[in-house]
């Protein structure tokens, strides 16, 4: 196994993808597969489910703490902006890198996301190649080069 498959604590890397479009979910999964990384991608299809996953509530009681959150902005029920605000307001969750992955190129969304302490803001490219390239670079930077807090280091 190559570096990047396993986190520093010896556990597989866990990514939470908060995305309501099944097509995008599948594309992201395929792109991670193209990037040749056997990471575990968990899916939450709206903001409420994302918070349940992160807080291990309901059917997500057994869910792992993710190493990285990929968050879409436009979501049903509780949208990405609210999810971001909730994560960064939660002492237990705010150390998890949260990357906005959206189609919105609106300046207002970008500014607002960084104000809410998003760790980066990425827009989904239209072309497949470019999308794959983006996922690959997420993997290269956030899951390979960046040092992340250890999974068990909960505050």
């Amino acid at each position, binding site marked *: 196994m190559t570096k990047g498959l396993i986190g520093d604590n010896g556990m597989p890397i866990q990514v939470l993808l908060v995305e309501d*479009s099944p*097509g*995008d979910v599948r*594309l992201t999964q*395929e792109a991670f597969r193209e990037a040749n990384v056997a990471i575990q991608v968990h899916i939450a299809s709206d903001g409420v489910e994302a918070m349940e996953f992160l807080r291990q509530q309901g059917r997500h009681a057994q869910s792992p703490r993710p190493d990285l959150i990929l968050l879409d902005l436009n979501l049903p029920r509780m949208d990405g902006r609210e999810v971001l605000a909730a994560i960064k307001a939660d002492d237990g969750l705010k150390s998890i890198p949260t990357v906005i992955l959206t*189609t919105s190129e609106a300046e207002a969304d970008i500014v607002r996301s960084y104000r809410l302490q998003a760790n980066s803001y990425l827009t*989904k490219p*239209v*072309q*497949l*190649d470019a*999308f794959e390239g983006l996922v690959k670079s997420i993997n290269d930077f956030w899951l390979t080069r960046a040092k992340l807090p250890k999974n068990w280091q909960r505050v």
Partner: protein
Amino acid sequence: MRKRESKESDARYRGLLEAAPDAMVVVDQGGAIVLLNVQAEKQFGYRRDELIGQQVTNIIPVGFAERLIADGTRSAAEALSQHIGTGIELSALRKDGSEFPIEIMLSPLESAEGILVTAAIRDITVRRAAAEHLVRMEERYRGLLEAAPDAMVVVNTTGEIVLLNVQAEKQFGYRRDELLGQKVTSIIPLGFAERLVADAQRSEQDALEQQIGTGLELLALRKDGSEFPIEIMLSPLTSIEGMLVTAAIRDISARKKAEVHLQDKVDELRRSNQELTHFADIASHDLQEPLRMVSSFIQLLARRYKGKLDSDADEFIGYAVDGVTRMQRLLQDLLIYSRVGTKGKELIETSSERALSHALANLGRVIADSGAVVTHDPLPDVLADHIQLIQLFQNLVANAIKYQKPGVPIVHVSAAKGQGDEWTFSVKDNGLGIEPQYFDRIFGMFQRLHKREDFTGTGIGLAICKKIVERHGGCISVESQLDQGSTFRFGLVGSAS
């Protein structure tokens, strides 16, 4: 001695008589002429001896002799008191039979021969003509006033209506006598009387200069209490009664209604235009989402299953990929097109030379791949949206390189100073050229002159250029000959410095 005195006084009277400016004729009670002066000879065209002893009716046929008879029945004192100073207008007859108007002043005088009547006769042909002229003029002016298409109201400086025409009666619904002497505020409550007061405080000359030809829009009031919009033109006039103001008043209800209607149309148009740009923006953005899915999965399909299904499947997938890719490009261009209007920035002083360098940098790879030689003259600073100016240069230079014959594409960008602060930019190439019948068409949406196999493109590039140039207040045009290259020209406004 007595005789001499009498002679002297005679001569004196005669002198007086002859010196009088009027024709003087002295008549006795019987109506016979006893004395006349040289003016009388002249006026009536007779020699003195032809008139002396003749009846006065020869020269004044009617109105004089009758009076003598009437006077004869009265006492001299009565006749005297009645006649002195009264001017009677009569008709006189010359020797040649022609008539002329006279004014005649009678003064009886007692003499040894009884009561004589001295008549001072003045030819009033000229005065009569002048008076008639005056009457005619007044009639003409009144006619003019009444014929005026507008309601005319003449007001004095205290705001009282002194004159009005029939249109004014109609417009305001009053009879003339109901308005004469009334305050103008009863028909024009606001804005007119105040102006009169203001005018009274100014010199006439000032008021005159200020008001001639100025149209005021005010509200007028009919007798029935209904209001209507008017345009009022004031012109002061000086008269013996002091300064008067003539107001030409036009009912502009129809015009106002038309204006409101027009404004409604403009608003409606603006709204629908806004909706349309908004629609194009939303549509192209929102359509991109599902299209991204189609495109991505078709590409995944192509990548994973090429050669694994049969050759038909490969061909079908190929067409699907091609179609969806084109659709994406169209949508992107459409989005750019619609955003020229909606996302445009303020026009500020911008270096067109820097914008061109920026565009050329963006086209770096295209230029390198084609081996194109792109040159330019020094370019001016203009009022522009920098981003859009880059886009404009980029599209035009990219086109110049794209539509090429085999060989080295040569593109030159220049600018020439036109009228005022106008600059005309030219992007000249040595490419394929365009036939004249297509000159207009190429700037339209989705217009293409070439088969897709020969040249890719959505046909929006030049439409975007046109929209950018027009947003900057200029025009874009092309001059070209087939196989001789093309020159695209567009105008921009230079910045003041």
